[in-house]
């Protein structure tokens, strides 16, 4: 079917004006500079973290602030060791962490498999977009604590209502990101596929999905963040374990060190996941922003 290539009159032309890394815009320049400097980026991050820890240590150890308001980081570390050995409020630290991970990532998995297809459909189909848009835009800005009572009344106080609350917090940003991903497809890219004979299915599979992937991955990072912010609200509902429950329980007894410990653990897990997502982004969509 394909014919090309008889004799090659063609000679390799040289292109003197095309230096491969010509910094012709500020952004390009920043990228080239930044490429060699990712190590110094880490150095700056370490400086800011160490600075905060130092300030905290000084404020508590030098008695600037009373321990009830801000316990020393050393106390918090001690509590970590203590709770790791003895557990807290009837559950081990691993159980607290495990239940919270289960709730956040369980809800995340459910949200990913339902919200992304809906978002893609909304991007592709005006009818679906018209039907779903007002509903999602209505509930999206609502604080989860506002509809938490309804969820308890409708779904009870077991795991289902906890998962649902976190799920709802993640659902909207995932839908929006998938929808925005579809919109980010360039008309030229669709024209390319059409001119090469692609049908609708092939355009979806080979153009729209890969083009939407960067937005979807960003949406996943935002969504998991929303999930963690909703965790404490979810674990207000008759929970027996979980990092959010641990924080709530400790706050009732003014155990500020455990409150801070819970916060640091949640933050550290969220941060670790975000770094993982960034790695995945670099692997899957290295062209993003180019």
């Amino acid at each position: 079917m394909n014919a090309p290539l008889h004799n090659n009159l063609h000679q390799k032309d040289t292109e003197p004006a095309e230096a491969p890394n010509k910094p012709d815009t500020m952004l390009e320049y920043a990228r080239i500079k930044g490429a060699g400097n990712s190590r110094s980026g880490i150095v700056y991050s370490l400086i800011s973290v160490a600075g905060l820890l130092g300030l905290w240590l000084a404020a508590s150890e030098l008695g600037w602030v009373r321990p009830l308001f801000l316990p020393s980081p050393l106390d918090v570390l001690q509590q970590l060791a203590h709770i790791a050995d003895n557990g807290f409020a009837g559950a081990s630290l691993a159980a607290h962490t495990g239940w919270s991970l289960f709730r956040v990532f369980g809800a995340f998995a459910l949200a990913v498999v339902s919200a992304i297809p809906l978002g893609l459909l909304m991007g592709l189909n005006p009818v679906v977009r018209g039907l779903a848009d007002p509903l999602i835009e209505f509930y999206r800005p609502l604080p989860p604590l506002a509809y938490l009572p309804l969820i308890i009344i409708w779904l009870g106080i077991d795991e289902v209502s906890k998962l649902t609350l976190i799920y709802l917090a993640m659902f909207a940003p995932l839908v929006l990101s998938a929808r925005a991903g579809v919109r980010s497809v360039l008309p030229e890219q669709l024209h390319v596929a059409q001119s090469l004979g692609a049908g609708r299915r092939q355009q979806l599979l080979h153009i729209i999905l890969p083009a939407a992937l960067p937005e979807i991955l960003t949406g996943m990072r935002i969504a998991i963040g929303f999930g963690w912010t909703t965790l404490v609200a979810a674990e207000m509902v008759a929970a027996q374990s979980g990092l959010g429950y641990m924080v709530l329980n400790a706050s009732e007894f003014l155990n500020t060190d455990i409150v801070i410990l819970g916060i640091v653990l949640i933050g550290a897990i969220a941060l670790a996941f975000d770094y993982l997502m960034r790695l995945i982004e670099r692997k899957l969509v290295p062209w993003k922003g180019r």
Partner: protein
Amino acid sequence: MTDLAIENISVLYADNVKGTASTPALDNINLRIKAGEFIVVLGASGCGKTTLLNVIAGFVRPSRGQVAKIVRQQDGRESRSILSGPGADRGVVFQKHALLPWLNVLDNVAFGLKLQGVGKSEREQIAHQCLVQVGLEGQERRAVYQLSGGMQQRVGIARALATDPELLLLDEPLGALDAFTRESLQELLLRLWYNRDKKQLLITHCVEEALFLASRLIIMAPNPGRISHQFELSFNREFLACGDARQIKSSSAFIEMRETVLKLIQSSQQTEGTL
């Protein structure tokens, strides 16, 4: 021998405000692209030349008229078939943004063959040959976003070649490139046209480029978009014979033609101003 006939094409864009007289983007265009022709459509921006290309490619449905493929038999009889929508018989090279960044150079070129269900090893072999043709041998595994503008455009050309289209449509493919890259790609386009012996249609607003490439030059005028002049040219043949682009472009015949064409375009814009 197949020709492509553009027959009575008019395009009216629907977004006109009610009550205002709508000026057609294209008004009754007739053009027959004969086998082996290199047609260059030249015009100032707003004359509808990109719309014309989009109609031929099948991206824009004309308000009136049709695009037909005409097969000429040995005995002189003709059989016609109306084209509707885009198809792999018309390959398109776009101005920019048209490479797929999630595919490497080779997979971009092989993309059309993949859509047609050609097996992996066969399509990669064809894609490799096309890359050789455009001077990108050895760049197969590179990411397209790491290439310079000129190399990206070469990939775009190779991709359009891979499905071996009857008509290669080029939508200002060199518009965003610097002068040196532009010249080397002009020469590449001429050699491809000569080697493949198939139809090519290129859109440009650069008079010199148009004169250098065209075997037939179509000049368009705006309001409404229409063909105002046509010239049969042979500067491209002269280049293929002598291989020295500078000699062609600095010849007195070339310069004289350039001034003639510039005056024509200028006068068509002046009449627009008095309307």
